[in-house]
C-alpha cells in the first residue's frame, strides 16, 4: 500500500492574548491508502486539532505534512480549499447539517462542488435513507442525521474520510449502524478512513490505532484481526 498522508514533527501552538498553549508537541505518522485508522485519546489530547490539520482546516505551526507527496504545510488558503474540496470528506460529532435543506439537498450541496461526485440517490440508498430524502434534519433522528452527514461526506467521492467522534452523540445501536456504514465504505470504495474518538471500544475495528496523549503519539497498535462493528459493545 502507498502512503497517503505523512506527517513529520508536527506542532500546533494556540495563542490567546499572551498565553501560548502547545496542543501538538511534535508528531510523526504515516497513513496508508485504504487504511481504517482510529486516533484514540482523552479530551484535550489534541486529537481534534490533529484531525483539522490533516483535513486542511487549519495549518500546523511547525513541521511537515505531505499528501500523496505534495507539501500541504506550504499550501495557500486557496490550495487548502481545493484539497478539502477534492480529497477530503468530513463527518462531525454534531452532524452540522444545513437545517433548512432537506436530506437530499444537503447531500446534493456537496455533490455540486465535486469533480467526480457519486450519484446522490445511490449514496442515500447506501446509507439507507432513500425513503427519508425529502425530510428536513429536524424531522430526523440523530442516527439518521449522522447518516446524511456521511452521505454528504462521501458523495464527493473523497480519497480520505475524516470523522470527528461520529458516534459521540448517538446511542450504542445507532452508533454501531453508523460504524457499519463507514466500514462498508472502506471496503467497497477503498476509502481511507480516519476516526478520532475517546471510545476505546471502537478502536477494536481499526487496522491501526494511534494513541494520542498530551499532544504526542504515545504508541501505535496494529490489529491483526479487526472486529466487525456489530461485534463491538460499550
Amino acid at each position: 500500500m502507498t502512503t497517503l498522508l505523512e506527517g513529520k514533527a508536527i506542532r500546533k501552538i494556540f495563542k490567546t492574548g499572551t498565553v501560548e498553549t502547545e496542543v501538538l508537541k511534535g508528531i510523526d505518522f504515516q497513513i496508508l491508502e485504504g487504511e481504517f485508522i482510529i486516533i484514540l485519546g482523552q479530551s484535550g489530547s489534541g486529537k481534534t486539532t490533529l484531525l483539522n490539520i490533516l483535513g486542511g482546516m487549519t495549518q500546523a505551526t511547525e513541521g511537515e505534512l505531505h499528501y500523496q507527496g505534495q507539501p500541504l504545510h506550504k499550501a495557500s488558503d486557496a490550495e487548502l480549499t481545493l484539497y478539502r474540496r477534492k480529497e477530503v470528506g468530513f463527518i462531525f460529532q454534531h452532524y452540522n447539517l444545513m437545517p433548512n435543506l432537506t436530506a437530499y439537498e444537503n447531500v446534493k450541496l456537496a455533490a455540486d462542488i465535486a469533480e467526480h461526485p457519486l450519484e446522490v440517490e445511490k449514496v442515500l440508498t447506501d446509507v439507507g435513507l432513500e425513503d427519508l430524502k425529502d425530510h428536513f434534519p429536524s424531522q430526523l433522528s440523530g442516527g439518521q442525521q449522522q447518516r446524511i452527514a456521511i452521505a454528504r461526506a462521501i458523495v464527493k467521492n473523497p480519497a480520505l474520510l475524516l470523522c470527528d467522534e461520529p458516534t459521540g452523540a448517538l446511542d450504542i445501536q445507532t452508533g454501531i449502524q453508523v460504524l457499519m456504514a463507514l466500514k462498508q465504505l472502506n471496503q467497497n470504495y477503498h476509502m481511507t478512513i480516519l476516526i478520532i474518538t475517546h471510545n476505546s471500544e471502537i478502536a477494536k475495528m481499526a487496522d491501526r490505532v494511534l494513541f494520542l496523549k498530551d499532544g504526542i503519539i504515545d504508541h501505535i497498535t496494529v490489529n491483526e484481526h479487526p472486529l466487525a462493528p456489530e461485534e463491538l459493545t460499550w
Partner: protein
Amino acid sequence: MVVLHKKVIREIKDNKGVYVACIIVIAIGLLAYTSMSIVYENLERAQQDFYQSTHFADGFIQLTGYPENKVQALANLPGIDQIEGRIVKDVNLYDKNSSSNRSLRLVSLNSPADSTLNQLQIEDGRLPLDGAAEILVDPKFYKANHLSLGDKLTLILEGKRISFTIVGSAQSPEFIYALKSPQDLYPDPQTFGIGYIPKNTLNALVKEANQVNNLVFTLKPGTDFAAVKDTLQTTLKRYGVKNIIPRKDQTSHAILSNELTSLKGTAQTLPIVFLGVAAIILYTMLLRLIEQQRGIIGMLKALGFTNREIIRHYLSYPLFIGSLGGLLGGILGIALSFPLTTLYQEYFALPGLRSTFSLKYLFLGIALSLAFSLLSGIKGSLNILRLDPSEAMRPAAPVSTRKTKIEQFTSLWRKLSAQAQMGIRNIFRVPARSLITVLGMAVVFSLMSVSWSMQNMMDKLTTFQFDSVQTYDVKLSLTRPVGTKATVYSLAHEPGVSKVEPVLEVPATLKHQWYKKEVPIMGLTQDSTLYNILDKKDQNVKVPPNGILVSDRLAKLLQVKVGDSLTVESPLSRERISTDVNKQTLVVQGIVPQYVGLNAFMDIQALQDFLQQGEISTSMLIKMNPEEISTFKDKFQDANLVSSIEDSQESKDKIEKMMGSYSFTVYFLAVLAGIAGFALIYNSSIISLSERQRELASLRVLGLTPKEVLRVITSEQWTLTVCGIILGIPLSYGLLSGIAQGLSTDLYSIPAELPLSALIGAAAGTLFSVWVAQARTYRRIKTLPFVEILATKE
C-alpha cells in the same frame, strides 16, 4: 449552488418580518426615484418640444407704449435676432348672473404671416379672423368654464362691454403656468385665463391705437442678455420701460423650471436617504446572519467551498432583497408616474405632456438598489474571509464586556433595573452597530421633522399670509397711478368700507456693488394695519420714515446688511436734470422676513419724494363689511381705472383648498419615514433576540415575564433612539436649510425654521415607530421556546 439558493429563500421565508420591512424601505426609495425621474423626463421633454415648436422668446419687455411701426427697427440692435410687439391687457369679464370676477389677460395676435415668436398651438377650433370680434382662449380656462365654440364672452374694455365669439382654444409657451399675479401661488383657470384677439380688432378698441405695450424678442446665438438689456434700456427710455426680463425670470417659465429643479433634486436625494436606511438594515442583518451561521460557514469551508463561493452565497441575501425591492419599487414607480403626470397636467398647460412607459428607470432603479445592497453586503460579509474553518466550527468566544463609563456614576447606575443595565452594557458591547442604529434613527427623525415643518412652511405661505400679513378684505389695483387723497376719500365713503389705505407699488432695480435685482418697492403708510410687515417673532415692524426695508432673501441676493446703501433705479421716477440721471441711493434700515413675493418696503411718502412724484398710489387696501363686498365689486370692477379687485377671503379659500391635497404628500413622507424607522428597530430587535436568545431564555427560566424580558432589549433601543433624536435635531436644521435654499424663488421664500411642534411631532412619530416594532418583538418573545433553546448545545 442551486441548493444554496433554496437555503436563502427558506431562510428569508422564516424571517419574513425583517426582510419584508427592508424590501418596503427599498421599494419606497425606488418608487420615489422611478416615478419622479419619469415625470421629470416627461415634463422636461414636453417643455423643450413645446418651446422649440412655438419659438418661445428669450426676452420680454413691458413698457407704457411704443409705436408699432418702429418695432421692427429694434431688430437691428446688436444681439437681437427677432422682435415682435403686442398689446397685453388685463380685462374683466362681464357676467350677468355671477358675482365672481373672472378676468382675461388679452394678448394681441399679429397676423400669422409676420409672427414667429411665442406661437400658439391650437387645441380646438381655428385662429380668429383679423378685424372680427373673435377670440381664442387658453384650454384650461376653456375647460374650467365649460365653454364651447361659438359661445360669447363679454369683455369690459375701456369701460365698454364688448362681445366676442369664441372660435377656439390655444396654448402659448408664455402661459404654461398662468398666474394672474406672481403673488398667486396657483393658477385658477376658473377665474383667470388668457385670451388672444387679432391685433387690428384690439387696436380699434383701445385708446392707445397703433401702440404696443409689450415686446418679445430672441437673441442671436452667443449673445449676452445683460448687454442687450442695457442697449434696450437706453433705446426705450422714453417709452416708460417697466421691466426687461430674460426668459429665466418669466413667471410661467420660472415656475416650471423651479418645479423641474426641485423634482430632479427630490428624485435624486429622497431615494438615497431610503436606500441608505435599507443599506444599514441589510448590513446589520447580514452581520447577524453571518455571526449566527458561523458553524454553517465552517461546515461549508470544510466541504471545500471557496471563500468566494461562500461570500457569493451570503451576498445573495442582500441581492435578492435589493432586486425584489428594486423591481417592486420600479414597477410601482412606473405605475405612479401616470397619475403623477396627470397631476402635473392639472397645473401646467403643456400640450405635449404625456405619460410614457419607461423601462429605463426601472433598470436604472434596480441597478441603483443592487449597488446599495451589494455595498452593504460586501461590507457585511467580509468577516467570512477572516474565519478559519476549524475556528468557525466552534462557537464564538463570548464578547468581552467591560464596565461602561456610565457605571462610574455609581448612584445613578444602581438606580437602574437589571434589564436596563444589561441593555446599556449591550450598547457598548457592539459600539459600531449601536452607532449605525443611532444614525438611522437620526435620519428617520429628521425626515419626519422636515415633513412636519413643511406643514409650517405651507402655513406661512397661506394662512399666515392672509391672517397676519395682508389683513385687508379687498385690494383694488389701479390701471395707472392716481392722486391718493381723492381716491381714498371717495372709497372711504362707499357703503361698508371702514378703512382705506393707499399703496404705491413701483418696479425698481436695486443695486449693491455688482449685485442687482429687479423687485417691486411697496410704499406703505406709516401706521398701516392692512398690510403688516412682521419680524421673525411676528412683531409688527413699521416702515421707516427714511430709507428702505428689504426682505431677507433680497438682502441675501444683494449681499446687503443694515446700514448699507442701495442704488435704486425706477422707470417711475421723474427725470432729474442736474443730478445723476434716474439714480439715487437709499439706506437699508432693516431686513425683514417675507414668505410670499420678493419686495422692498418704504414709507409711501418717502417713496413719492424719492421718485419726485406727487401724492400718488397704485392700489388701495380696504377693510370692509364682508356682506358689502359683492356689491362693491359689482360697482367697481367695470370701472376704467380699476385693473383688478382681489377679495382676500376668496383667495384664501382657494389656496386652502389647493393646500388640502398638498398636505397629504407631506404626511405621506412622514409615514414613509415611520416605516423605515420601524424596519430599523424591528431588525435590531430580531438581531438582539437571536443573538441573545440563551441569555433571554435564562431570564424566562428565572421567572421573568415576557414583558420584563422585552425590557432588556427595549431599554437598549430607547437609549439609542433618544440619541438618534438628539442627533437628528441638527440634522433636521441642515436638511431644512438645504431645502429652503434650494426651493426659494422670487415668488416665495421657504422659511428655514423648525418649529417646536415639528420637533415634538417628529419625536412622537419616531418613538411610535419604535413602539410598534417592539410590540411585534414582544409577540416573538412570548413564543420563545426557552426550554429548547437552553437544551441545545452552545
